[in-house]
């Protein structure tokens, strides 16, 4: 196995210096996700303003892959439209589930392309997706908490 393929510089950098970490107010939706096989956990909050993901804040414990993935996700979808954030989430999820066959689009996924190699390691895919699952779940909760069409 090629370790460098899994632990790319970008991943180690996000792991050591996570972007956007910490829980912040305001937020409309919060999700807590656990990976029962390793005990990794993330609590993630989403603040939606109009149709924009105005803030993603999180606290997590876990391996380098799960922590780096949450940090990369923050950079990628914080501040973009809800629609775009969901599209990127779908794109990243598909890449992770590609069993090493997927080709990452650098234009769209930016730093997240460093995770391409992770998809070859079935035991680690869950680690990489934990933060993204929390985002999706928190967003659903945020939308449920906000009256429909309640954009001001």
């Amino acid at each position, binding site marked *: 196995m090629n370790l460098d393929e899994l632990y790319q510089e970008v991943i180690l950098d996000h792991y050591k210096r996570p972007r956007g970490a910490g829980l912040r107010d305001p937020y409309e939706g919060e999700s807590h996700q656990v990976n029962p096989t390793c005990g990794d956990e993330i609590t993630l909050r989403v603040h939606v303003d109009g149709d924009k993901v105005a803030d993603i804040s999180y606290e997590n414990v876990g*391996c380098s892959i799960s922590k780096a993935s949450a940090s990369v996700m923050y950079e990628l979808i914080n501040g973009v439209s809800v629609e775009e954030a969901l599209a990127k989430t779908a794109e990243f999820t598909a890449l992770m589930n590609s069993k090493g066959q997927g080709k990452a689009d650098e234009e769209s996924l930016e730093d997240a392309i460093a995770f391409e190699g992770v998809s070859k390691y079935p035991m680690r895919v869950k680690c990489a997706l934990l933060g993204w699952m929390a985002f999706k779940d928190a967003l659903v909760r945020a939308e449920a908490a906000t009256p429909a069409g309640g954009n001001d």
Partner: protein
Amino acid sequence: MEAVSKLDVEAVRADFPILRRMIGDKPLAYLDSAATSQRPVQVTEAMRRFTEHSNANISRSVHTLGAEATEAYEGARAKVADFIGARSADEVVFTKNSTEAINLVAYAFQNASVKPGADPRFVLRPGDEVVVTEMEHHANLIPWQQLCERTGAKLRWIGITDVGRLDLEQVDEVINEHTKVVSFVHVANLLGTVNPTSQIVARAREVGALVGLDSSQAVPHIPVDVTELGVDFIAFTGHKMLGPTGIGALWAKAELLDAMPPFQTGGSMIETVSMERTTFAKAPAKFEAGTPPIAEAVGLAAAVDYLDKLGMENVRAHEKELAGYMLRRLETVDGLTVIGPRVPIGRGATVSFDLADVHPHDVGQVLDADGIAVRVGHHCAKPTCVRFGVTATTRASGYVYTTTDEIDRLVAALEKVRKVFA
């Protein structure tokens, strides 16, 4: 004088083809025997021979294959009984694994608690107490937790000291006149601690409680004699003692098996059946509903033969040396903290550790790249992790085929982990 290992490890290794496996371009160093052990050719061969020559269902057939299969299955039971010093083969119930064996006992309590006229030793009511320890594998925690939830009994536990031993000062308080059953781990799967049993067993007797052991990590590694231990039941599993998966065993005193209501019901466990009611067969058949794992029993018997030939005292001596070597070498790694006893006394060759806060998943991944297989995670012992303030550990565990060279490779690879994540 201390016993010196008489195992010829290289000769043992020759019996395990999987140990010649390459992981990428590195030879496998299998340090995960506490999760599942590898199997010698003798086990595989016995199962193959049975399958190709004698395969049939047991007990009911009059044909030759049926008779051979029954003989092989009951012969395996006798061999296992003998291996653990049971008075009679009828005291050994084959199960799927340790988890099922412990559930069998917990459900005996639950079923007795709702059955009029059941043996009062198995009847639980609010006010009664069940005792475990803080270092249990979930297999010996959750069945009792559930039992307490359903009967209103209270679950209590003996804590762990900072050095990873049971806090025996709590024994007299935690086990008291309310205690109906004490079920505790013999050798801890995360900490590697070999628990002293006599004080707990004596206290359980004093208060009239039943007492049993989760011996999953004991039977494979140290001589176990149920009569000497003086307990009421023990549970263990085949795949951790060189045998196949899918078979484990419950040993319990004959008199208790007679008093216990069955766990699962159905085929093979009956005496007579009408549309209205059923009377049950005697133990062990009473607890073996349905077709059992027959070829697996044959495999387990071959594993017992193999261990018998090595001699369990030799196995223990080998692992004591190995544990000492592991602890000495691991403590030379910068930033490594052993979780569990740090001296090779009252502990097995299963060592959990934290490495400079690098997540165990990452540690395991880097080690795998060097062909080294360890277990990472909470090892189905989450309360133990919480007790030591970690979410997970890396665990290296050795067995009869483990060499000091493999430990050296582990130590060298751990230095690499530190470099990647420094």
